[in-house]
């Protein structure tokens, strides 16, 4: 099995000037985007992009690096989305207060379901994650406390700054960008530490990893917990911005599938893969919906499905792999094979 890891496997350094320039340009592009394209619609797309990038990067930790393809991550997203609005509905707290609690709950959920689910491998594991997420979705639809099928709403107008009900998308954009930066930094640190090596070893071969002394079970659980925490944050951010949640928009299977697809499109198991995937997919979705959506023929999803099949069939390593194949002379370092 090939490892499409970034070229900086053994060293994370800013030694090379081109790389520094590259990072600088990327950071500049992300920071300046909403100021350059300042229409609210464009900023909204930017926010959507950031949410997709954050959730896909969060998934990437356990799904990309460790190779545990969870298709049930919506359970953490939904938990992260419901908790803040529940606190608001029950006690009038600003939704933000629910964010840290949601993170703790998600980590708890990860530990509880990780135990039995990680005993399964490959397709079985994916199947189990889908089942648990669906179960939670259906259950939520029957539970009156969380609004059952009707869902929960956030504050319609801001009561104080803490409500984070901004009239403009700009504050949301920068908040979310900060979270993305934090997540990518965390992933980068993980990548170069032993934990990261354990993850990759598990992905390559669990049996071999175990025989080499890798604490497989523990590592998988930690990866899931970390992934769950950030996915939960994404859910909370989503709900702070959108102001509404119901079982489908919180726990729906398409949410899980989107995380996987965005990460896979860019290159799962790489630092910037999910970001790249989001950069391509979010504008693509918005564009095709704008062009074709009004006609109502569902071409957006036909395209979506088609692209996913093509990637799976021809470039499973995502755009990173495509790049490697197409432009070999841009490679500056040897890759771990």
């Amino acid at each position: 099995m090939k490892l499409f890891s970034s070229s900086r496997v053994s060293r994370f350094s800013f030694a090379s000037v081109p790389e520094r320039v590259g990072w600088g340009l990327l950071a500049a592009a992300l920071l300046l985007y909403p100021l350059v394209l300042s229409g609210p619609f464009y900023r909204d797309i930017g926010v959507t992009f950031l949410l997709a990038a954050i959730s896909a990067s969060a998934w990437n930790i356990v799904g990309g690096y460790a190779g545990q393809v969870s298709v049930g991550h919506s359970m953490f997203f939904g938990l992260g989305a419901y908790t803040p609005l529940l606190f608001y509905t029950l006690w009038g707290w600003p939704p933000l207060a629910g964010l840290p609690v949601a993170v703790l709950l998600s980590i708890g959920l990860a530990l509880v379901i990780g135990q039995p689910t990680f005993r399964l491998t490959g397709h079985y594991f994916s199947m189990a994650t889908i089942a648990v997420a669906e179960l939670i979705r259906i259950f939520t639809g029957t539970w009156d406390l969380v609004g059952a099928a009707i869902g929960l709403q956030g504050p319609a107008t801001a009561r104080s700054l803490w409500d984070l009900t901004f009239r403009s998308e700009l504050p949301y954009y920068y908040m979310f960008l900060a979270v993305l930066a934090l997540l990518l930094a965390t992933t980068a640190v993980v990548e170069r530490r032993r934990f990261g090596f354990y993850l990759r070893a598990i992905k390559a071969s669990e049996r071999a990893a175990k025989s080499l002394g890798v604490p497989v079970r523990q590592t998988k659980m930690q990866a899931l917990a970390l992934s769950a925490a950030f996915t939960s944050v994404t859910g909370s951010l989503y709900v702070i911005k959108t102001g509404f949640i119901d079982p489908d928009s919180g726990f729906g299977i398409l949410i899980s599938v989107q995380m996987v697809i965005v990460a896979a499109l860019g290159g799962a198991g790489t630092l910037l893969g999910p970001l790249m995937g989001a950069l391509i997919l979010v504008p693509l979705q918005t564009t095709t919906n704008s062009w074709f959506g009004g006609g109502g023929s569902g071409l957006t999803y036909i395209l979506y499905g088609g692209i996913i099949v093509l990637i799976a069939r021809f470039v499973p390593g995502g755009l990173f792999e495509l790049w490697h194949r197409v432009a070999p002379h841009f490679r500056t370092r040897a890759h771990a094979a």
Partner: protein
Amino acid sequence: MVVVQVIVGGLLLGAIYALFSSGLTLIWGMMNFINFAHGEFVMLGMYVALLVVVWLGGGPAVFGIVAACGLFVLGVGIYLSLIRHVIRGPMLAQILSTFGLALFVRYTAFFIFSANFVSLPQTSLAGTVKIAGIFLPVAQLVAGAVAIFLTLSLHMLLTHTAIGSRLLAVAEDRAAAMLMGIRPDRMQALAWGLSAGAAGIAGALMATAYPWSPSVGETFGLIAFVVVALGGFGSVLGSLYAGLIIGLIQAVSAFWLGAIYKDIVVYSLFVALLWLRPQGLMGKV
């Protein structure tokens, strides 16, 4: 006697579940591969039935056969063009391939057939018979009976024919089968054909009794997963028992606990199975 009525209804539907799950379990057993687009095959079978009725004016027998054959060809085609390649690749690609396929098929169906719910015009299977105080809608009765028959036939095909034993050989040990002169690629293509064909004819059978739209594939796919998990991956006979059991559990819990709880019961069972007994009733681990 209401209880008996509930049970009979559950079993009849369960028989259809068994039929369309039998293909899924075959593939799973042979290739350790889950087809996330399986539900869409059932949905396509339903539309084939509609097209046959509208264009050719055929009855249930005709559209059943057309659905089976058409989907068989589709299954083989999908294997040869897509599955055969991704199966050698990373896990992520395998999972994505059929997910993407499911989206593609579902929304192409939306595009062609629109989102309206459709049902077959009354076929020769209309009406209800009453036996010993139990109402048996003819369409459901025939569908259930045919489904059981076909599932058993598939099981017999696998266990009592030469080609069946070749399929099972590949499932058990691909390398050894190759050494025995069996071509795994061909067998796997055949398995995909059988799987899709079974799903297609199950869809055609369901079309006689229930309305549908392109979105039904998602529900059927999930039911198939539950049935396969219970029956055991790889065992067609297991999926027969499991299908009947799941149909029964659904009906009984809908009646006693309430309709919305039936899904919770079935999914909880599913999760419990995956955690406690992943090999199901009759599967091999």
